[in-house]
């Protein structure tokens, strides 16, 4: 297990490094001057020059890259333009809100997706199975921001069951949870579909396996076979899928935070763009990328811990 974890960690470090390199290339190659972007159209040439020096843009490319790269790995993502606070601090301050939102999305998708997929697999070919299949595809297809706005319109504006904006009173967990329901639904609804489909497919595959036949031949109760023998194997790919899904949920979270006016990294970046706070944007993108890779890593390690075959094959 340790061996597997170390190898998997190495891969993650390589991917993050490469992502940093790509991000740097993108900033550098794409036409446009970050200094003038940051200062706006009315800046004088002298101001821009001073800004370039401050952002290190006057140095050779490879020095810029090295500074960016080493800075990023040591947590120095520069300072944000308006207040001069370290970007990392500002991002980390907002991060918990986004993570809670994503956790909410995952809760929705797991709590609904796994039972639905399992149910569809057990009743394979039935009307219920077809219905779950079509609904899954439908919720996957509809973009999360449309879900967010329609949910806002239906449940907050028209029915007034749930609050429309904000993250709730600080310290009041109940209020915060109530404020979490709609945004996390917008984040997680599509993933209910993904997970239901995935669980159904892998459940059907596992139920065909010969060890399930063996278990039946030993007269084990069908419940034990379904939930302990089959489902434990069938949900393994789901965990990997969720790891990848976090990236999409991060995207959905940006919309959910804007639509429901919640604090969070997405809202932070969006506002940073409006105020041309360039270092904050790159910093936030990097942090979310690292989180995404990290969560993928965790998902793979969980699968490694649950599935003894994975550890030995890596």
């Amino acid at each position, binding site marked *: 297990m340790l061996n597997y974890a170390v190898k998997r960690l190495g891969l993650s470090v390589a991917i993050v490094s490469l*992502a940093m390199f790509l991000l740097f290339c993108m900033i550098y190659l794409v036409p446009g001057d970050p200094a003038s972007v940051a200062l706006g159209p009315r800046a004088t040439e002298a101001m821009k020059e001073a800004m370039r020096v401050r952002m290190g843009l006057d140095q050779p490319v490879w020095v810029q890259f090295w500074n960016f790269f080493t800075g990023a790995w040591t947590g120095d993502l520069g300072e944000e333009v308006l207040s001069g606070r370290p970007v990392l601090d500002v991002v980390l301050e907002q991060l918990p809100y986004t993570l809670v939102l994503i956790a909410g999305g995952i809760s929705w998708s797991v709590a609904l997706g796994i039972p639905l997929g399992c149910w569809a697999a057990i009743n394979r070919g039935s009307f219920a199975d077809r219905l779950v299949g079509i609904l899954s595809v439908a919720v996957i297809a509809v973009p999360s921001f449309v879900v967010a706005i329609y949910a806002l319109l239906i449940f907050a504006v028209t029915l007034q069951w749930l609050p429309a904006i904000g993250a709730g009173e600080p310290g009041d967990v109940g209020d915060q949870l109530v404020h979490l329901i709609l945004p996390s639904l917008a984040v997680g609804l599509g993933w209910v579909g993904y997970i239901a489909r995935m669980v159904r497919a892998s459940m059907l595959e596992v139920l065909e396996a010969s060890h399930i036949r063996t278990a039946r031949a030993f007269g084990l109760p069908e419940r034990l076979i379904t939930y302990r023998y089959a489902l434990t194997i069938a949900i393994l790919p789901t965990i990997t899928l969720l790891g990848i899904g976090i990236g999409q949920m991060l995207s959905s979270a940006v919309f959910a935070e804007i639509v429901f006016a919640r604090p969070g990294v997405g809202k932070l970046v969006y506002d940073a763009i409006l105020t041309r706070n360039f270092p904050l944007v790159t910093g936030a993108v990097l942090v979310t990328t690292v989180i995404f890779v990290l969560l993928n890593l965790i998902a793979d390690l969980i699968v490694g811990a649950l599935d003894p075959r994975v550890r030995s094959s890596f």
Partner: protein
Amino acid sequence: MSEAVSSPPARTRSDFGRSVRRLLREPLGLFGLSLVLLVILGAVFADLLTQWDPTRINPRDRFLGPSAAHLLGTDQLGRDLFSRVLHGGRIALYVALVSTAISLAIGIVLGLIAGYGPRWLDNLMILLFDAMKSFPTVMLALALVTITGPSLTSVILVVILVNVPGYARIVRTQTIAIKSSEFVTAAQSMGASTARILRVHIMPNVIGPLVILASMDIPVVIAIEAGMSFLGLGVRPPTPSWGSILNDGFGQIRETPWIAIAGGLPIIIITLGFTFLGETLRDVFDPRLKGRG
């Protein structure tokens, strides 16, 4: 997946006809097809279907609810929403077609290089694809637009960056599978050049699954365009886009909800339509792709 490796099944004309007939028998596929056609026809014949100019501002007609004159109502500038929705379809379909075509072209080239090139290059490119995929889409879009500024080109650029790694990976996997199969080895032993092997043996086998997968990605592309326009990072006003209509409506959601509904509805229709159609197409034409993507 062993059958994916076996020799190239040349699809004959009658095979194709049978597949199309099967597609038309599937109620879900037919439903998807009609939704897609509805939007395409609406976009193509927009000027015949409504006499309202999608960008003309009528201060006296602001915030009118749906009526016979304005089927979906008007927005905060008095523009007819039905006309804006139809013309917004043009933008969505344009972005979908252009960016998918470019992504496919780049993806095929990169995938062939990775699949047919030396081992170290393959490993490097796989790592590169993984790194590209590790940016959350919206974050990538936000970062990019900060530099390039909001425009249709930015949207297309984001779509390409999002799609290419996936396509390249599929092409690579297929290429490696076919490269080591018997008929390619046979061609090589008979002295066929690499270019010929790529053209005659590998490309025809790669294109089929790729086109199906790309068509299934179209709703995602449309969602990216609408999403970026919703955030004000896509098309510039006054050009109509479903995303920007949604944004106009979002600001007024308590007072005039029909604007947001008008913006969201075509997005729901087109994404559902393409998804139902794509699912059915995949099952009918290439059952071995089932469960992927």
